């Protein structure tokens, strides 16, 4: 991370727009939306300088950012791979075979839960119910859900990622 950490101008506009959604003096409410933006813009995780910068932008104390960033599972506190595979494994997905999907990914990529492949491509993150229970098994990749997964579908998705063609956003 360079010392001149800053949002791109258009991102900063977006941040200011979000801050205007709340009454005067309540700009702290923008914290979670802005952390999402920061995580996306600064490499997929929230390093301390990033959080300090967000605190500065919102004119709140750094500790207020740390305590929030560490509370929510979508914020990564350490580096992650380019592709984060979030596979749901709660009851309804388990019933439809999510463990098989997880096992397949663990084997194929040779990583354990929460780990990232050596080439920095993939992180496997088992997840709890993502609201796709009727279309199980499923995983989230970037902004989108991949549903009714089979081993073959998972392989296709991994291949698209390797070729840099998976749509994340």
């Amino acid at each position, binding site marked *: 991370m360079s010392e001149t950490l800053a949002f791109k101008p258009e991102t900063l506009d977006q941040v200011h727009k979000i801050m205007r*959604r709340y*009454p005067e003096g*309540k700009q*702290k*409410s*923008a*914290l*979670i*939306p802005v*952390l*999402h933006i920061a995580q996306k813009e600064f490499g997929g995780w929230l390093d301390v300088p990033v959080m300090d910068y967000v605190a500065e932008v*919102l004119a*709140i104390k750094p500790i*207020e950012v740390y*305590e*929030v960033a560490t*509370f*929510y*599972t*979508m*914020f990564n506190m350490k580096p992650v791979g380019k592709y984060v595979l979030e596979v749901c*494994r*709660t*009851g*309804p997905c*388990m*019933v*439809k075979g999510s463990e098989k999907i997880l096992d397949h990914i663990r084997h194929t990529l040779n990583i354990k839960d929460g780990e990232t492949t050596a080439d920095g491509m993939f992180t496997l993150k088992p997840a*709890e*119910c*993502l*609201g*796709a*229970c*009727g*279309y*199980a098994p499923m995983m*989230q990749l970037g*902004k*989108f859900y991949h549903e009714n997964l089979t081993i073959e579908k998972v392989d296709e998705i991994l291949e698209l990622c390797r070729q840099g063609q998976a749509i994340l956003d």
Partner: protein
Amino acid sequence: MSKKLLLKDAHIEGIRHFDVYRQQGGYGAVEKALKMSPEEIVEEVKTSGLRGRGGAGFPTGLKWSFLAKPEGVARYLVVNADESEPGTFKDRYLMEFLPHLLIEGMIISSFALGANTGYIYIRGEYSWIPDILEEAIEEARANGFLGKDILGTGFDCEIYVQRGAGAYICGEETALLESLEGKRGNPRLKPPFPAVKGLWESPTVVNNVETIAAVVPIINITGSEYAKIGVGKSTGTKLISACGNINKPGVYEIDMTITVEEFIYSDEYCGGIPNGKKLKACIPGGSSVPVLPANLLLKTINGEPRLMNYESLADGGFATGTMMGSGGFEVLDEDQCIVEHTMTLARFYAHESCGQCTPCREGTPWMYKILKKINSGMGSMSDIDLLWDIQRKIEGNTICPLGDAAAWPVAAAIRHFRDEFEWHVNNPELCLAQNYGLARYADPIPAPAANA
């Protein structure tokens, strides 16, 4: 055919967009409501008998009438789109396919409550839906239904979408408000209730997505007509998200007079259980409500057919009944292992506890650990009793109902399937081999003959 009030237009091409929605009569309810007084709207909602669709089933009109109205203080409407209860995916469906229905409901509800700003708090993982909602909001604004002086009535209304970031607890209304204020999702002690001190200490109403959407048909057909649909205190229609071992998973709108059996086996809904398997158990209202074995699910303890509504599902209390909850309906067939399933739920609650209360923070991971032990064949009989004791000590001893929500599934699993827990203790090798053959519930109910 069930009466459809919410989803009737869901399959129309382009209904996501204002023009198509408007052609189907959309925003007619706003036009009608803005000619009424706010009190009249609240009265209609009261008359309708609408109950909160977020899980607790509290009467919406009554909740609205509690809203404090001090002079010169802003009021807020917050829509709860956190939808994280395992088994539940109905609000997602509504927002993805009918965003304008939610926006329309919010405009009417805001007017009734005297709120000029509304927030939709949506779970962070639904990250493509805010785009859909924001597009709908822009369309509504461009057509004069949002912004300043709506339809020349002098009423101003703005709606914003706020994303969460992965925390089930933020579905609890006070945790949601904390999160919306940019804090950790720690539930607040009540009182004060949000109706008095909510968002930024201002009077606030928090309602579920489906609840607010239901306000639209209530205004369109009137509260008294709405109240005629359904039975008893279960008025109107309810969205059910069906999942698990069924042929046709998905989101269904039901009127609350059909039987559970019809819902599971008829082709209009779940379409029965795949591969001719037998029904073993069901969690009919999201992971927090008690699981029921097939026999108690299909018939109440008095032998009456159980219906898909608040009263009938709860008939018998927790001894022999369950709850309507959020409408997350999960079916388990004869091959499913109750111990393993309960273990995944315990892991979920342990993961989601905010950590403020000792019984919940310590008890939920402890339950998960014991369940994992039993599931892998390393449990003892005393572990089953210990599990029972822990859940008893969590229930009722916490700030928010997540503690109860974590305790109930464990309690119900032991209550109804103790033999299966004991089987795990007695057959450690089979557990390790993941062979649950013998764990099948002793007496699953066969599929009814009229399987259509």
